[in-house]
């Protein structure tokens, strides 16, 4: 009974922590909005506006109020789902972001599946064969993944695999020909094309997705491999591994039934964080592949100083990371009886 009360207390504490973190995040985005050299009034009224118009807009934006009052207004806006209008498109920012987000989620999800799918087994293999040839091979591969700039590998891969060999699709989410053929219901092209039953579009989308997702996946697998290897080495040195061997378990059984289940928690955490940074925007890959996603959206708005858009993007990235952290906390409790 006391343990249950304790975990209730833990959950309440966790919610409190999340609220405080969110508030901090909002303070941060608010400060970014005020501190940036871009003048929000100028952006609306334009360069030729009279002093009167300028003043009027200045007041209507609430910029003549004390800062803390402005923050309260901002807080209220965010809570009611009003993130402001994009200067560039004239549309509500949130609508623009909802439009670009699926492209990035699609890319990031495939990338992390590839990254974890390669990275985790490679890390385990390397740890089990420490200092023997499989370990060396894995370490060289992951070093490459780490150190090759992704925009460079992206371009080389495009030149070789698309332009020369024609094995995969080029830039964009699908072939030019198919654009606009499929109605946008979810924004996820793979799902939309299946929903409309248009398999040509689906295969074109897969063809376009496979290369950027593999490159991103390879680059995050480098990190996942290294971490998996060191987590596994930690566990393989533990005494309970000897116990398992003494019982007569084979190497394979010892690794998967004893060592590996002990690193699940740590693995979930690093994979979640890697996924988070992919969602935040694989800006370089999105640029090289003309992928109309979140990373591109954020960068282009930063450059032109569309502050409503930038603030909202930062907020979303923050929320994604808070959510992923929460997820890994929950999984901790699931995987490790000591934390229950």
């Amino acid at each position, binding site marked *: 009974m006391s343990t249950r009360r304790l975990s209730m207390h833990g959950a309440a504490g966790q919610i409190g922590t999340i609220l405080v973190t969110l508030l901090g995040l909002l303070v941060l985005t608010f400060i970014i909005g005020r501190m940036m050299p871009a003048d929000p009034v100028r952006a609306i009224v334009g360069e030729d506006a009279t002093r009167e118009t300028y003043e009027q807009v200045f007041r209507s934006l609430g910029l003549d109020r004390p800062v803390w009052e402005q923050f309260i207004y901002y807080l209220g806006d965010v809570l009611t789902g009003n993130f402001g209008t994009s200067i560039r498109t004239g549309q509500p920012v949130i609508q623009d972001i909802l439009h670009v987000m699926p492209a990035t989620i699609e890319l990031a999800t495939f990338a992390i599946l590839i990254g974890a799918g390669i990275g985790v087994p490679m890390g385990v293999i390397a740890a089990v064969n420490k200092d023997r040839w499989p370990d060396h091979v894995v370490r060289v591969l992951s070093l490459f993944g780490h150190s090759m700039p992704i925009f460079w590998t992206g371009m080389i891969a495009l030149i070789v695999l698309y332009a020369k060999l024609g094995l995969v699709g080029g830039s964009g989410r699908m072939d030019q020909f198919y654009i606009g053929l499929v109605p946008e219901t979810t924004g996820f092209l793979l799902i939309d094309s299946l929903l409309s039953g248009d398999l040509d579009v689906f295969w074109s989308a897969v063809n376009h997705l496979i290369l950027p997702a593999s490159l991103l996946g390879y680059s995050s697998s480098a990190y996942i491999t290294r971490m998996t290897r060191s987590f596994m080495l930690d566990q393989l040195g533990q005494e309970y591994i*000897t*116990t398992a061997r*003494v019982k007569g*378990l084979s190497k394979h059984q010892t690794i998967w039934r004893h060592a590996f289940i*002990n690193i699940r928690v740590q693995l979930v955490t690093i994979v979640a964080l890697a996924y988070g940074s992919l969602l935040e925007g694989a800006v370089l890959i999105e640029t090289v592949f003309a992928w109309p996603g979140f990373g591109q959206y954020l960068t282009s708005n930063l450059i032109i100083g569309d502050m409503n858009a930038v603030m909202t993007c930062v907020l979303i990235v923050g929320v994604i990371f808070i959510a992923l952290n929460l997820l890994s906390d929950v999984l901790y409790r699931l995987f490790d*009886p000591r934390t229950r």
Partner: protein
Amino acid sequence: MNRPILDVKNLHIRYGGASTDAVRGVSFTLGRERLGIVGESGSGKSTVGRALLRLLPSARISADTMRFEDIDLLSLTEKQMLAVRGRRMSMILQDPKFSLNPIRKVGDQVAETYLRHFKCSRQEARDKAIAMLGAVKINDPDRVFEQYPHEISGGMGQRVMIAMMLLADPDVVIADEPTSALDVTVRLQVLNILDNLVRDRGIGLIMISHDLNLVRNFCDRVLIMYAGRVVETLAARDLDKAQHPYTRGLLAAQPRIGGARAPLAVLDRRPEWLEEVSR
């Protein structure tokens, strides 16, 4: 006397990358008896235990003989060795805090030994495990079966370890400092449980320890190891009649309740001990 279960002659062990042998020419036999191996840290006593189970992947092991029943332990493949470990010969490790897997239920870990070596259903293995937990004097074994290692005490953890290692009914059990990590108050209790099980089942026990009194009370014979060699072998009851100066030095350094309050004797190590051979 019957043919010994274990027969080891001139065992040498060298760890990978080391320039000298950790164990140098150790010979002993083990029948259905309790054999103590005593020595200080680094004397090679644990290394001998692990070598018998071939648990030292990076070490080079050589011997004139390393026979277990009719099995030549040196020539077994790893796969054949898997059938020996846990089933014919097992080992009780020192500290249950580290030697039990922290995130698996205690009972599953015990039952795993049975599942590994016998064709049976999970339920059958579970029943065996629970019966064995009862045999190591755990009250309410059904409840303990479902607990995790962090939820049980050290003494109980070590009893779980004993249950796990005796479940498949081995012929030889190596106990590597089985009570060093336990509270003094539960040491005797755990040792008695182990001792009773070993005697009832006619298991050959190798008790590795640095505790002379423990070995004197719970073993039939004692090997004294120093710097990778056996310097003396004697019956446990004759420990006081030890001849070797190292053994005599160890005995002299023992504090005694009610004894003189003079400073305890300090070992005066002689270089020639390093090269002496067991008589």
